[in-house]
């Protein structure tokens, strides 16, 4: 009898190491007005932010839980601690970071990556940043890369107030409202006009606390003609209780600017990842999303781009790997408003061992978006019949002057492709191995080499015999 090709689950060994919980402060579990006020006190919020949080809580309580996606009935906000402060101030040198926390980030390769190939790093541990640094030469260009709390209260306070949760308002959906009420940590980035940040900035989020939530806020403004690549990574050890991630990313890409936003998401399998990301792109601007989703128990993740300016564009490249115990609902959304805008989505997904992967997208072309072009391509690979793979794309087109295409494929490995490679001298095993390993390279080839290697290490393949 033929053996089936075996595809390992994601190798989580380094991510599952738990630090002893030795917090400086842990908020009581639950979500009440008193908790929000206490959180605001702990963070010494300006008055407007305090009011903002309380209003967001009100909206959260009024909004319904979505019923169109994976069930989140295992998430009980009464048993989530929304704020956990580690025993560490924010440092700008790794030597000053407490040893256990530093060891965690060392294992994850963050300091090494910073030394080798990054312009700046923000490292968040539970609810606060423990490290933030930007290279001198980048700071001298006028690039601002700081933690959100400092930006909120310091010289950029007016800018933060102008932009904070305007692109993703608390009314957007229930977990945007939750974020508005309990957000903590995250980064603020401003790139001045015509500035090319040639080396990436990175933020890394590590949630160590059991039964806690992480709600970082990332706000990036790339001014006219500027260029930035921002990378975010995340992980957490696995517990037998639920953890929650409801972060928010707001990206403003000004006229003729370009922003590439790369994410490798590797939360643990007890995590509910309900993240919201949105970009507003002005005339001639471009946003490129590169997204690898490998972790979480349940994930809702659909980076959205609003192509407001004429000639603006969006590209989304993503790969999702849903293994045992995972239900990952991922995709992208785009709204074309300006003239001659373009969008391109290229996604791959792999489901195995009972994992559920759903590709969900929307392409909306408004009447004003004459000359719009959009192409969506999604491929799904099912590796066994215990798993599930769904594609649910929607196109809503309101101008005749648009050129829209969509294609999708679901199936197992193509026998024709295997035959082709074998006709070129490859063994069947090698042919199938090549096809499966190449399936995810739409994302890995868009990442800097170190991250591509990390991503490929997340999917370790062991091939025996043939698939199917």
């Amino acid at each position, binding site marked *: 009898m033929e053996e089936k090709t075996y595809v390992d689950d994601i190798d989580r060994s380094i991510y599952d190491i738990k630090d002893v919980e030795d917090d400086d402060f842990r908020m009581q579990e639950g979500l009440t007005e008193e908790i929000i006020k206490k959180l605001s006190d702990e963070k010494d919020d300006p008055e407007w932010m305090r009011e903002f949080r309380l209003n967001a809580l009100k909206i959260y309580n009024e909004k319904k839980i979505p019923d169109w996606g994976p069930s989140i009935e295992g998430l009980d906000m009464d048993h989530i601690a929304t704020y956990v402060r580690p025993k560490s101030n924010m440092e700008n040198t790794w030597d000053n970071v407490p040893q256990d926390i530093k060891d965690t980030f060392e294992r994850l390769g963050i300091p090494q990556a910073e030394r080798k190939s990054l312009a700046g790093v923000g490292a968040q541990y539970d609810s606060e940043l423990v490290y933030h640094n930007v290279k001198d030469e980048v700071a001298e260009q006028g690039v601002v890369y700081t933690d959100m709390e400092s930006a909120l209260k310091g010289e950029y306070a007016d800018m933060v107030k102008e932009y904070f949760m305007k692109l993703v308002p608390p009314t957007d959906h229930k977990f945007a409202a939750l974020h508005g009420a309990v957000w903590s940590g995250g980064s603020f980035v401003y790139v001045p006009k015509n500035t090319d940040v040639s080396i990436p900035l990175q933020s890394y989020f590590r949630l160590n606390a059991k039964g806690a939530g992480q709600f970082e806020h990332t706000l990036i403004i790339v001014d006219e003609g500027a260029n930035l690549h921002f990378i975010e990574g995340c992980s957490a050890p696995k517990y037998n209780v639920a953890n929650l991630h409801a972060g928010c990313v707001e990206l403003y890409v000004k006229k003729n600017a370009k922003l590439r936003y790369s994410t490798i998401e590797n939360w643990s399998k007890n995590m509910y990842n309900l993240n919201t990301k949105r970009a507003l792109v002005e005339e001639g601007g471009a946003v490129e999303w590169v997204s690898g989703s490998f972790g979480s128990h349940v994930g809702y993740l659909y980076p959205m781009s609003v192509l407001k300016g004429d000639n603006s564009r969006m590209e989304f490249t993503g790969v999702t790997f849903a293994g045992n115990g995972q239900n990952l609902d991922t995709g992208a959304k785009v709204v074309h408003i300006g003239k001659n805008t373009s969008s391109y989505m290229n996604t791959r997904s792999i489901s195995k061992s009972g994992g559920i992967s759903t590709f969900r997208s929307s392409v909306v072309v408004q009447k004003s978006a004459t000359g719009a072009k959009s192409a969506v391509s999604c491929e799904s690979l099912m590796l066994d019949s215990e798993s*599930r793979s769904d594609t649910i794309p929607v196109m*809503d087109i309101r101008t005749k002057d648009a050129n*829209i295409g969509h294609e*999708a494929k*679901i199936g197992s490995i193509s026998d024709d492709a295997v035959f082709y490679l074998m006709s070129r001298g490859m063994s069947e095993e090698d042919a199938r191995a090549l096809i499966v390993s190449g399936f995810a390279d739409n994302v890995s080839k868009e990442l800097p080499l170190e991250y591509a290697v990390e991503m490929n290490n997340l999917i370790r393949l062991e091939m025996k015999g043939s698939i199917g």
Partner: protein
Amino acid sequence: MTDINIDEFEKSDKLTVNAMPSKTWYWLGVNDASLSWDMASEKFLKTNEITINDKEKHEDIWLDLSDAEESFNKKEIKLITKEESTVTVIANYALLKNVRIIIDINAGVNSKVKLIQVLTAAENSIYNEVNASCEKNAEFELIQVFAGKKSDYSLDEAGKIYSNVKVELAGDASDFVYNMGYLGQGGNVLDYNIIVNHTGKNTNCNINASGALKDNATKIFRGTIDFKKGSSGSVGAETETVLMLGEDVVNKTVPVILCSEENVSGTHGATIGELDEETLFYFESRGIDKKNAENIMARAAIERLTGITENEKVNAVIDNTLKEVLGDD
């Protein structure tokens, strides 16, 4: 059997129809459709029950709604085709008043069923529901023409066609082929929903829809191919081509594939846009201006079905329908 929400039906004068098996974001307005319906005045027309016995070959059973009245009507048709039988059923519903049509089909082992429907609407609403279950090796072919005529009245009274087709490929090696052509004009609403459940092994479906939208017509297409666990060896494909010709048209396309089985192949594709430059150039080089080129292509979206029906009488109906809705254009 019907997919109408009965509780809602009895409480209000709106029907919720064309529900997708897998919902998505509500703000897109595609999870289902809602149409006005006066339940209290609905008249039940005579039910047609048709049984084709074992090995019988029956051509051209014509159905119509000649007994429909001016207000709201309901028509039920039950078709059973027994083992190795063959039948073609043709339904021509032209410019009628409000009518709700429910067709239930049971296609027996090795039987072949072809259903051709020509639906036109001017100032009325049509809700058409087809529920088919296919046993082993059964073949079900459905050809639909949706033709909307410009209304002389307000937008609210423009013709609306809603269609919900649900096919169960329960028997191994059963097969469903769907071809559809549509033309929406004025304020027409064309809202259709296809659900194909692959349950048996080695089942096959092919969904092919194309059409044109003029003026301020609205069209929503939801096509769901669902590979249930156990449907190994099955293949499903859906394609839609939409020609957008009006300044205020609205097109929504939702091609869904759901899959719980490893050894299957599912594909979908959609192309939406106006006439491309090359095609326009071709027409202009032959003395045909843009407006006439668009009319020719709009007609072609439905005329292509005349090459598939294999039935001269049906083709004549389609030609007459196009003349009726397009006039001398």
